[in-house]
């Protein structure tokens, strides 16, 4: 029988398998192995974690393929990598290298301030950031197989991820209780493709998984995002900027699995050392924020 690759079901299904898991940012093979041993469901291969990108400034691009390749060869769990928003060639390069998932990410400096990638034309699945349901629906219509909150990456401050997750969940609930004859107006107001909103209404949920990302710094933060309806979490700078990455990584994984067992989360939060210092997002100049990148 004929085999079909790169279908929506194959791409979205891949994201479904990540549910209830933690995806960790890594910058080399050694970190990737630590993440895998701690129980990460996937790793995100990067040249610099978001907090270093913030510190260093300048243009942040796709990682040197040497790093991505080293990570791909080091672990058996899936490997994700980031390309700049709208950078067709970076995305094609990552696809050609056998990366399992691409993050079209606002953490890197956008290559295109007007257009996102037409992700449906790729065989590899994509994840994209969103601050609200309209943005999520636009990315899904372009072919994203997974959505994550944008949060405010590299800050160690969960407040923006919470805001985005709350907003998406509230708007989902709103759509589920909207009369079908009012749906087109919502689509217009939110800039959300009508077909995606209809699909949400029919299925009773988003057609793709929705992870939390951007500022998750502790096991309690990770469990919080699960309580707010996240299907899983991305942890960026938090793990390898902490004092004991191995212990920290394990604790985050367990906090996500046992998100309702608060005694357990208390126990595994003990003696983790100092979490990353973090930044108060409200004191940040607007132009330093990453979440408004993309539309």
């Amino acid at each position, binding site marked *: 029988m004929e*085999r079909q690759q790169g279908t929506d079901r*194959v791409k979205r299904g891949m994201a479904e398998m990540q549910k209830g898991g933690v995806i960790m940012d890594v910058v080399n093979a050694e970190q990737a192995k630590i993440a895998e041993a701690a129980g990460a469901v996937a790793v995100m291969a990067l040249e610099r974690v978001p907090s270093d990108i913030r510190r260093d400034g300048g243009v942040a691009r796709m990682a040197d393929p040497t790093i991505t390749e080293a990570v791909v060869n080091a672990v058996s769990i899936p490997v994700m990598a980031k390309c700049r928003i709208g950078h067709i060639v970076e995305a094609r390069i990552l696809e050609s290298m056998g990366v399992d998932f691409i993050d079209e990410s606002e953490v890197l400096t956008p290559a295109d301030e007007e257009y996102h990638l037409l992700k449906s034309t790729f065989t*590899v*699945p994509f994840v994209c950031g969103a601050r609200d349901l309209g943005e999520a629906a636009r990315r899904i219509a372009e072919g994203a197989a997974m959505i994550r909150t944008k949060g405010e990456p590299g800050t160690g401050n969960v407040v923006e991820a919470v805001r985005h997750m709350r907003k998406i969940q509230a708007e989902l609930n709103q759509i589920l209780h909207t009369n079908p004859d009012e749906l087109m107006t919502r689509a217009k107001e939110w800039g959300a493709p009508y077909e995606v909103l209809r699909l949400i209404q029919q299925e009773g949920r988003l057609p793709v998984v929705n992870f939390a990302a951007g500022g998750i710094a502790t096991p309690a933060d990770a469990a919080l995002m699960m309580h707010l309806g996240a299907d899983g979490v991305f942890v960026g700078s938090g793990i390898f900027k902490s004092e004991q990455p191995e212990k920290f990584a394990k604790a985050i994984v367990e906090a996500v699995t046992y998100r309702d067992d608060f005694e357990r989360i208390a126990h595994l939060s003990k003696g983790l050392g100092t979490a990353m210092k973090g930044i108060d997002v409200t004191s940040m100049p607007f132009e330093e924020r990453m979440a408004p990148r993309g539309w």
Partner: protein
Amino acid sequence: MVIGVLGLQGAVREHLEMLMSLGVKTRIIKSAEDLEGLAGLVLPGGESTTMRRLIDRYALLAPLRQKTKTLPMFGTCAGMILLATELEQGAAHLEAIPMKVKRNAFGRQIDSFETMVDIEGIEQAVDAIFIRAPYVERVDQGTRVLAQVAEDIVVVETDMHLACSFHPELTNDTRMHRYFIEKVKQHHAASVIS
């Protein structure tokens, strides 16, 4: 009759919904105590490495291995890996189905695919989604091959257990789950008689 779904990580909700649509009571399994009183257990798709870490950390390995002797299990994708007695790479997990399994056997995510698969004991071809899927390199005594894709073995069973490389829980095709529910019923009917 209650069928559990191992709920550490992965496509848990899809299996629960499919079982419930077939009129079965379900339970999410996260600890050894949850295993008591089950008629069957589904090991869902997800990341097998992650599931194993969590199984180990929460002392589920010994209880699950013990249960493989009396409790029918159905593993999909990562679940198939968990059930194997031998892996091409690394140590085996539950050692319930005599077979050697290769992880990510069809390649990376870009090689993942969907197709229709003919399965022995099920009338028409089944809708099958393979995601970074394993296959069975070799079956040992007591294990029957129910389906192959080209040359590769993708569905197997023993008298008690069932495993497939693909994800029936991601489709609307309920026949693999029905097949498992029948196995569970037969197993318990037989154990009542003996």
